[in-house]
């Protein structure tokens, strides 16, 4: 549904791709004489470089506590104890941050939570 902000000049992932492509074409041309071990560099896509987003669930007096716990287990795959901790935080403090990370995945989580009729929002980390 959405993508991260575009940056001019290409991201590290793109640069690494170009380097790899060059490496392969040289090899095919027979100019490569030594087989040095390649070291995988940690690369990040644009989305990963984007500011992390938080999935926040807000208190709702209608949804049952047991239902909310079940939804957290299903959507995030959390064990029961962790799901209950978040549910109690929502209940007592009014909100709980369930997950943070890339925007696209956060949107997917919020969509799933809305499918279960929980009050969930996507918030940018300050």
């Amino acid at each position: 549904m959405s993508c991260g902000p575009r940056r001019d000049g290409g991201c590290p992932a793109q640069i690494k791709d170009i380097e790899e492509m060059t490496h392969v074409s040289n090899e095919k041309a027979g100019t490569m004489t030594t087989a040095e071990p390649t070291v995988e560099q940690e690369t990040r896509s644009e989305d990963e470089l984007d500011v992390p987003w938080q999935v926040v669930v807000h208190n709702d007096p209608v949804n049952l506590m047991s239902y909310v716990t079940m939804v957290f287990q299903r959507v995030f795959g959390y064990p029961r104890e962790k799901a209950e901790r978040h549910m109690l935080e929502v209940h007592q403090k009014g909100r709980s941050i369930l997950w943070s990370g890339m925007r696209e995945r956060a949107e997917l989580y919020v969509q799933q939570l809305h499918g279960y009729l929980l009050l969930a929002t996507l918030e940018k980390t300050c």
Partner: protein
Amino acid sequence: MEIRRRNHHIEISELDPFLAELLRQIPASANPDGVQAAEQRLFSAPSNGKQTELCAEWRMYVEPELRRLFQTATETVAADLQQLNGNEKSFANRTLRIPSKHADAWLSALNQARLVIAAKNNFTENELNDHFRSPIGSRRDLSLFQVNFYGFLQEFILRELES
């Protein structure tokens, strides 16, 4: 009323006509009927208002999917509720069998109905937590009873899903 788990279904037996009628009303109760508060609760905003572009995209792409999802659940429940429309005497107790594979649809439809009723009546948290309010003396009391009755069914279905 008795509620128990059978092999592949949840059985609600000894349903008196009043409770049977409340069950029949689940699909209709889940309909926001154009009431803005109910619509807003079923289709809540994905952000706290700062992300206007996201909200606009959400309305365009996600909301129609959610509507379909909710409608499918209420249709499944409505089909199960056909069992209550038999030719038995109108005051006889009824039995409803909910197939286990429909449990998620029931959870969703019951939740939709509870949220819509609560939004339409603007129930306070205190009212919603008053499970012993009685007797039913007004339309508002009846709606509150409906929310609690549907919540009781949800609790039972959830327990069955866990076991």
